[in-house]
């Protein structure tokens, strides 16, 4: 009997190990694809190209949509930084989603807003709009004041309705866009007419030096939890999204920064207000919509338009965020399950969705089971110590390799973190994350599974801290 258990547990651990090797091999493949793509990208998109966009008559104007719920602390600075963006023609549409902390008053005070008539068409259904405010003194700002919809999606939809330009850029109110973000993000729309959505990279603003709503120097955060996330974001964006985009199977355009064709958004009914992962859901639905109609389309990720965001630096905030992200992923996979494995949906159906289902959705479950079985096996002497040590070492080494690969991508391309000590810390955190942080995120994602199965839908917004200044 004891031998049977011992064999079962060892075999199970081998299964988990093979799974980990498979998932990390996927990441490694993404890193290699991303390396070549990023090097090509750096050669191709020169500053001169950006200058060309600024001059070109073909450059489409953009409506930047900022859904804001209880963002009184950061919204004015965010909007100021948006108004200073380097782009030929754009408007800023702030949607006050029934805030109770005086967000609207802050905006009225800062930008001299006055009430204007509600004159726009409202093709995407949203909670009622209470009023429209425009600025007489501070350029193209429109503030939509609406009844709280309980989610960012409803506010973003109200912004899409009010937008007057053909492209809409949806961002978070606590984010700061890089000065050239719009110019760089719009290039695929100019280059390929069939482009319907473009995502940019989200980087962590905690610890960075901010002046006048601009990140003037990228630095690592002081809080350890946020430092882990810097490496994690590099891995997700520079390796994962670049590779998914190269394979034409991008499923997520981060809610923090995405540029979309407004007419297509209206056609698909905007963001799904009943979804926890509205950003992934929208992109998946765009794929489905276009594939169903056999319409040529492109959804791409660009690594150089930067959106700086505040990452949660407390365990509670991070737990909520990861829980919500995981619930969102599961919900999107469930909602669009007919696409998975369906050749009709091309690489999205055959590669991206199965990848998300097998590795992203079930990854924490398999990993957690592996930990449990290993600990139980070791406690009862059912698993060979040497094998357990070798497997742990393999998991840590392979995981570290992926993180170091992501740091390498940053180093050979954008190199935002100029200080040598930041580079050393990033490398160190690539190793350290395997001891504690990784297990924590696995646990939070497992809780996401439970909450998804319980159909829990509520989420608490992250408390805002404002940006540090130089």
């Amino acid at each position: 009997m004891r031998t049977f258990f011992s064999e079962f547990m060892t075999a199970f651990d081998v299964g988990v190990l093979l799974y980990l090797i498979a998932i990390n091999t996927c990441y490694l493949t993404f890193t290699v694809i991303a390396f070549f793509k990023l090097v090509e990208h750096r050669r191709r998109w020169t500053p001169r190209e950006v200058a060309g966009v600024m001059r070109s008559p073909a450059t489409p104007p953009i409506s930047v949509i900022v859904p804001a719920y209880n963002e009184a602390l950061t919204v004015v600075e965010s909007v100021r930084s948006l108004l200073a963006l380097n782009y030929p023609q754009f408007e800023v549409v702030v949607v006050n989603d029934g805030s109770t902390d005086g967000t609207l008053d802050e905006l009225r005070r800062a930008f001299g807003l006055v009430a204007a008539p509600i004159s726009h068409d409202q093709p995407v259904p949203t909670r009622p709009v209470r009023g429209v405010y425009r600025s007489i003194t501070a350029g193209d700002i429109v503030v939509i004041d609406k009844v709280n919809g309980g989610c960012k999606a409803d506010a973003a939809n109200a912004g899409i309705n009010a937008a007057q330009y053909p492209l809409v850029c949806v961002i978070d109110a606590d984010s700061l866009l890089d000065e050239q973000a719009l110019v760089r993000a719009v290039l695929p729309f100019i280059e390929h007419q069939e482009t319907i959505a473009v995502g940019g990279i989200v980087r962590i603003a905690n610890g960075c030096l901010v002046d006048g709503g601009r990140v003037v120097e990228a630095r690592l955060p002081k809080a350890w939890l946020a430092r882990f996330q810097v490496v994690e974001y590099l891995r997700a964006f520079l390796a994962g999204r670049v590779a998914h985009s190269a394979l034409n199977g991008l499923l997520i355009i981060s809610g923090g920064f995405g540029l979309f064709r407004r007419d297509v958004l209206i056609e698909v009914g905007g963001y799904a207000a009943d979804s926890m992962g509205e950003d992934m859901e929208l992109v998946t639905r765009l794929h489905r919509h276009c594939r169903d109609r056999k319409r040529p389309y492109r959804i791409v990720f660009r690594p150089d338009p930067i959106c700086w965001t505040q990452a949660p630096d407390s365990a509670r905030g991070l737990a909520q965020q990861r829980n919500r992200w995981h619930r969102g992923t599961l919900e999107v996979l469930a909602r669009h399950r007919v696409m998975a494995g369906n050749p009709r949906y091309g690489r999205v159906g055959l590669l991206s969705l199965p990848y998300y289902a097998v590795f992203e959705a079930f990854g924490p479950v398999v990993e957690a089971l592996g930990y449990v079985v290993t600990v139980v096996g070791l406690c009862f002497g059912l698993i060979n110590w040497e094998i357990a040590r070798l497997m742990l070492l393999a998991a840590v080494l392979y995981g570290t390799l992926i993180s170091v690969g992501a740091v390498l991508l940053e180093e050979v391309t954008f190199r935002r973190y100029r200080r040598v000590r930041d580079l050393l810390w990033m490398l160190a955190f690539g190793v350290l994350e395997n001891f504690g942080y990784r297990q924590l995120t696995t646990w939070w994602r497992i809780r996401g599974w439970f909450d998804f199965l319980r159909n829990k839908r509520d989420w608490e917004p992250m408390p805002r801290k404002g940006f540090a200044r130089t």
Partner: protein
Amino acid sequence: MSLVDLTALIRAILIPILVVTGSVLAGLLIYIFFVRGARMVSERRRDRLAARYRPLVEALLDPDLAPGAIRRLGASPVRHRPAVEGLLLAAVKVASGTFVDQVRAAASHLGLVEAWTTALGDSRWWMRAEAARALGCVREDAVVPALMARLDDDHEEVRAAAVESLGLIGDPRAIDALVAGLSRESRQQRSRVVLALRAFGPSVVEPLLAYNLRHPHDTATVAELLGQVHAVTAVDTLTSWCSDARPEVRAAALGALGTLGPCASTYYYALRALGDEVEVVRAMAARAVARCQRRDAAPYLATGLNDEWAVAAQCARGLRELGPAGRRELERVVEGPATALARQMIWELDHRAVAPGA
């Protein structure tokens, strides 16, 4: 399989994986440190050389000091040339006039123009593209034929650089080749050609019209371009296209006429197009009517306020720009879908300084 076999199998799999992963990891770490170190050294050297040669590049601004500066730049060691090249190109990108001539003279003296011309035939596309851009920046008209040859390059970036450079140089020999580029594949490339052609001004009108005869399917683009180069001599052609069978041509022609501004013949063609069956044509017609700035246009624009949204918006904007006559028409709108739009325009007239054509 027994436990012993299983353990041996796992060990046999894991040990090679560990060795390979560990070696790759060590290699990556060494590479990262090497890249960072090399970059730091290179940046320091670049800063040092920039501090040394920048005063000489700035001296090119002064016609009296320029010959001496060119001589001293020419005496710089060959290994410093890339840094000097970078400084010259950075300066010339934001400059015009005699300074560009001085930079060109300096680049020629340093052998850079010759090196760039040679690099136009390099096997690496980015070298060809950089060389084409550099030659455009210094407005080197001797290389116009070589740049024209690059319009047929295999790589789009090189073609793009050639188009931009030919636009910067502004040599009329390039007009025909650039106009022929309008039939190129990507929209981005076409917009570059449009930009380059705009730099030539009205002198491109004749080649454009000739191009249109050869490529009648591109009439809409040609119409758009005629507007952008302010081709007042092409008004008659544009008005004739207002009755073209293709709606995109009618819309582009009316758009171009609107861009060209007030013109008696435009007004009547645009008025007629207000009754067109296609929405985008009516919208462009409304814009063109408004740009004519005639008070008697107000009642015509008012009729479009209850049209489709795009047309109504153009009519409302037009009325906003027509002064008291337009305001009177806006104030008359008391019911129907145009009410909100009219209220918005009146609000804008009361609260905001509206730029003409906005």
